[in-house]
């Protein structure tokens, strides 16, 4: 059915130059307008999952009034099933730093931060070494843009951008009300661009290839390639860079173990796609979006256990401030257990579906809003497993 096929690409991890920081140097010779035009032209959308057009984000921050601005790299990769940011930071840190520096120049920021999840603390010595060399280069290039690492300490919600700022400011990672958005009021309430690790690398690749070349990858809604973290029931788990807009059935052919029952696209906050929908599901912003997590389940797995695991995760990792998320997650978890045990009739699942819909439209941030994704897609597609 899908015309698109699965294409492996080598954009993110490929060595782009023998000379360190070459793309950064050439980019800095261009005007900010030129850079923004290229970004806009490339169609690049954020790689963290939400998919906001990167050029617009940068433009808003550049235009926002403020004497001090910041660039933040979101490396709080906590979505279950995702590990691509670790791999990117480990293998091509210079591309990340370069992307941040270009952003700093465009928006007028002199300070960049990498917010690294506490689980990746072991990477810090290597990253610091790389940063030393970056700072030497950037001095030579004549740009005032330093980068510092800030550590998380084990809180999934801090991947939410405003929660991340709260955490960097020494507080509890509780998401803020929006508006205002980070581009006008981010870290320290100053205009801030916050992008995912992979987004910054894409920027560098666009700078190197030019938007026309870059645009050839992917579909009109989902430009470029994407780094996927593949795990679960697959003979070849790992990190793969694939073109966006691929059909899920091709993906399953490639990565499944021949007995794939469902794929969870986008982690615990993403969608569960059952076998019968593989052939009309496209991975990308036009179909099922993902920050890169692809968890494959074969027919030996209980989807009830999968959902139970996700809900335990959300119940624990919700920041707890807003009612729908804090109490809703507890109710969904307790509810499926009650149905499974027969303490509640199967129709109670309908009640829970309505609740998850309310959570989706009333929760304060993306966490509470996205619990319904996995909940409704698993319950709808595997109802029998929830009951018997």
């Amino acid at each position: 059915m899908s015309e698109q096929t699965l294409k492996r690409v080598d954009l993110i991890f490929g060595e782009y130059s023998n000379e360190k920081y070459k793309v950064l140097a050439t980019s800095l010779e261009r005007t900010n307008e030129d850079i923004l035009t290229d970004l806009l032209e490339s169609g690049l959308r954020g790689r963290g999952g939400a998919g906001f057009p990167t050029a617009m984000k940068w433009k808003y921050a550049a235009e926002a009034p403020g004497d001090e601005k910041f660039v933040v790299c979101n490396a709080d990769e906590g979505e279950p099933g995702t590990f691509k940011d670790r791999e990117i930071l480990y293998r091509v840190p210079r591309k990340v730093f370069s992307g941040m520096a270009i952003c700093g120049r465009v928006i007028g920021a002199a300070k960049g931060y990498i917010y690294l999840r506490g689980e990746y603390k072991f990477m810090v010595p290597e990253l610091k070494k790389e940063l030393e060399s970056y700072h030497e280069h950037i001095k030579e290039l004549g740009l005032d843009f330093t980068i510092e690492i800030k550590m998380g300490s084990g809180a999934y919600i801090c991947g939410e951008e405003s929660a991340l700022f709260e955490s960097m400011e020494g507080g509890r990672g509780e998401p803020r009300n929006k508006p205002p958005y980070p581009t006008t009021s981010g870290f320290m309430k100053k205009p801030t661009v916050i992008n995912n690790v992979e987004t910054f690398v894409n920027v560098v690749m666009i700078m190197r290839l030019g938007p026309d070349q870059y645009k050839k990858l992917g579909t009109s809604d989902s430009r470029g390639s994407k780094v996927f973290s593949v795990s679960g029931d697959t003979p070849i788990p790992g990190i793969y860079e694939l073109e966006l807009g691929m059909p899920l059935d091709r993906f399953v052919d490639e990565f499944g173990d021949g007995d794939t029952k469902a794929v969870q696209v986008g982690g615990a906050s993403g969608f569960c796609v059952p076998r019968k929908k593989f052939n009309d599901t496209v991975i990308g912003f036009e179909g099922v979006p993902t920050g890169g997590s692809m968890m494959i389940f074969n027919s030996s797995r209980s989807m009830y256990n999968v959902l139970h695991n996700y809900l335990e995760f959300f119940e624990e990792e919700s920041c707890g401030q807003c009612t729908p998320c804090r109490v809703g997650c507890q109710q969904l978890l307790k509810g499926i257990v009650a149905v499974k045990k027969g303490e509640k009739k199967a129709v109670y699942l309908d009640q829970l579906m309505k609740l998850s819909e309310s959570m989706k439209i009333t929760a304060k941030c993306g966490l509470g809003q996205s619990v319904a994704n996995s909940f409704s897609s698993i319950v709808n597609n595997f109802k029998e497993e929830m009951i018997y």
Partner: protein
Amino acid sequence: MVPTESNYINELVEIHGRSRTSLMPILQGVVALKNYISDQDMTEIANELDLSAAQVYGTATFYSFLDTIPRGEYVIRVCKTITCDMHGKRTIIQTMEDMLKIKVGETTPNKKFTLLETNCLGWCHEGPAMLINDTPYSGLTVEKVHDIISEYMNK
């Protein structure tokens, strides 16, 4: 500069500063040294940063790696997310519970090990995975866990 045993709060404050943004690095620094943040440490930090102790407590208890109860010298955190679970997390935990003679959530009487579960560590392609303090171990099998824990026991 590495903070010393006796005067570590002051030294951490000197390194990181007294603004609210310094709170996380200071708390992380205490955990790196002591494996947990005591009530006394928290009041001291609060006074240094002109915060209330309840605010410091609020921040610390938000983060699962900022323990506020005493932990062992080696804190083992086993990933409990679905893919690690599918690949034998329970056996791994059982193995360590048997070796250390403690249950999940407990600390050995000699204060050497604490065994905990944690959310996704980002090693889903190589599950089951765990952290011992900051060091990740993935692709765990019963044999591998035996070797790793034995090595730590002899440390």
